[in-house]
């Protein structure tokens, strides 16, 4: 019984962040909850789609941008992160994020998925399904980070870092926004994880790439991508999988999910064209890497907005974020001089921040129940900014501490020789012929 209370509480809190659904499901909770097979079917599918984003989606998107001698190490890192987070999420992460607790972190009531059953519901879907859907988010977030320190981190250090980070940074922040924590209560809008997932990963990546230092040969040798075919496959699977990420965050197969899918498609396409256009003007040629990078930037930017904005709003969010991410991956990076190898901050950080703010601008009462700046509710932009600040500050500090400790204990960086020979051979004893 007590368990069911936790559950209801947690669920209500989570759903609170999803204005579109706030009313009925919440009620549904009070009333006798009933499983909806259609909603369940969609959430089962969404879970598969979000897993597809990390393996092989993200792994290929990243791997193709590296030199041939490091491609397997990147696939290894993404795949290993997927496995490690699955286990850690079951052990404690889910509980820290979604068990009843303080406004700052969840409790330990759901460790090892204690009390999970076939019959328990979360709104109209099985509770265990909500757990595994959220697990796929806990997988991709740390996986996104590894792009920043590609080519140079020890595999063991990477496992320690991502594992601890998920428990200490990701799980609490998820609780803040979706688990009944203070950001959710403060009215921060984050439909599918612009703040929780992308700003979070972007900032952690930035901190990590600064602390580990630049790649050997940066500026002197060619670090050109060895096979953008892989990158395009990865970007495509990210796009397709993102439907599960955004439309799945409706936790139901309804109009909100459909609208989330539509605006995701529109914003992504607009962002890709926007990056392409800017690059075409500035560099004289449109590149496929630019096109797909823009698409990812658009996917990131629409993530917090998906359930809250109308198609027109999505079009603008896409156009703006595409150009913004281009700047993030080129101008900003040059300006500051850090070596964010695969532009985790440039795209996920910048895109996430732009998206979070624009959600406050374009939010439409008719779509998601909350009005934004354009509908006269300027306050929402401030609320969004507050969500960004809280996340950036906590994530930056915590990530830095974790990395520092690991560096002291086992060291973050591989030997120069290992880096030169390539991580595939030196760390994993394998090569691509």
């Amino acid at each position, binding site marked *: 019984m007590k368990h069911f209370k936790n559950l209801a509480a947690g669920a209500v809190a989570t759903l609170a962040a999803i204005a579109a659904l706030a009313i009925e499901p919440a009620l549904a909770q009070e009333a006798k909850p009933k499983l909806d097979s259609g909603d369940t079917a969609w959430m089962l599918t969404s879970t598969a789609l979000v897993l597809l984003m990390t393996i092989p989606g993200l792994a290929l998107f990243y791997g193709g*941008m590296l030199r041939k001698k490091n491609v397997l190490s990147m696939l290894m890192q993404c795949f290993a992160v997927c496995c490690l987070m699955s286990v850690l999420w079951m052990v404690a992460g889910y509980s820290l994020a979604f068990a009843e607790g303080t406004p700052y972190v969840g409790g330990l009531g759901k460790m090892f998925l204690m009390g999970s059953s076939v019959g328990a519901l979360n709104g109209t879907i099985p509770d265990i399904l909500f757990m595994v859907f959220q697990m796929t988010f806990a997988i991709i977030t740390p996986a996104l980070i590894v792009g920043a320190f590609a080519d140079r981190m020890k595999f063991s250090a990477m496992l320690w870092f991502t594992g601890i980070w998920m428990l200490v940074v990701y799980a609490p922040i998820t609780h803040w926004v979706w688990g009944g924590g203070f950001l959710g209560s403060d009215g921060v809008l984050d439909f599918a994880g612009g703040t929780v997932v992308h700003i979070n990963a972007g900032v952690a990546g930035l901190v990590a790439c600064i602390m580990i230092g630049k790649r050997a040969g940066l500026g002197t040798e*060619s*670090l*050109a*991508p060895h096979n953008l075919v892989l990158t395009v496959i990865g970007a495509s699977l990210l796009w397709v999988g993102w439907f599960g990420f955004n439309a799945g965050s409706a936790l139901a197969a309804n109009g909100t999910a459909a609208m989330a899918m539509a605006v995701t498609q529109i914003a992504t396409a607009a962002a890709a064209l926007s990056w392409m256009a800017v690059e075409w003007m500035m*560099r004289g*040629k449109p*590149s496929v*890497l*630019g096109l797909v*990078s823009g698409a990812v930037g658009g996917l990131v930017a629409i993530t917090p907005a998906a359930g809250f904005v109308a198609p027109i709003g999505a079009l603008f969010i896409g156009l703006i974020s595409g150009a913004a991410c281009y700047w993030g*991956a*080129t*101008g900003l*990076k*040059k300006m500051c001089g850090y070596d964010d190898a695969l*532009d985790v901050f*440039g795209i996920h950080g910048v895109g996430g921040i732009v998206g979070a703010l624009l959600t406050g601008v374009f939010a439409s009462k008719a779509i998601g129940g909350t009005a934004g700046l354009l509908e006269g509710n300027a306050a929402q932009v401030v609320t969004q900014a507050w969500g960004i600040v809280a996340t950036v500050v906590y994530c930056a500090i915590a990530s830095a501490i974790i990395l520092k400790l690991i560096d002291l204990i086992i060291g973050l960086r591989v030997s120069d020789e290992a880096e030169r020979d390539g991580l595939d051979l030196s760390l994993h004893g394998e090569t691509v012929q």
Partner: protein
Amino acid sequence: MKLIEAIIKPFKLDEVREALTRIGVQGLTVSEARGFGRQKGQKEIYRGAEYEISFLPKIRLEIAVPDELAGQVVETLRNSAATGQIGDGKIFVLDVVKAVRIRTGEEDNEAL
């Protein structure tokens, strides 16, 4: 015998091979190479990082021929491989002390 090595533009390969066959060259060996020289490459840009391509794709031919044929082969190479644009490549003629056909053990001119 002479070993004639030629560095040419890749898209010229088929043309060159046919020209050589016409003058009786029975065999040759090619390998992929990258050349650095007067010809400048296009630059590649990836998310704002520019890379000058200083090494351009070339094909490396090796043709072993009897001394008397050498001059004609060089001539043919020149005519069939030239486009008149920078980067057409080079021909180098080396002396061969001995040649052997692995299958039969035939030596020198018989080996070619």
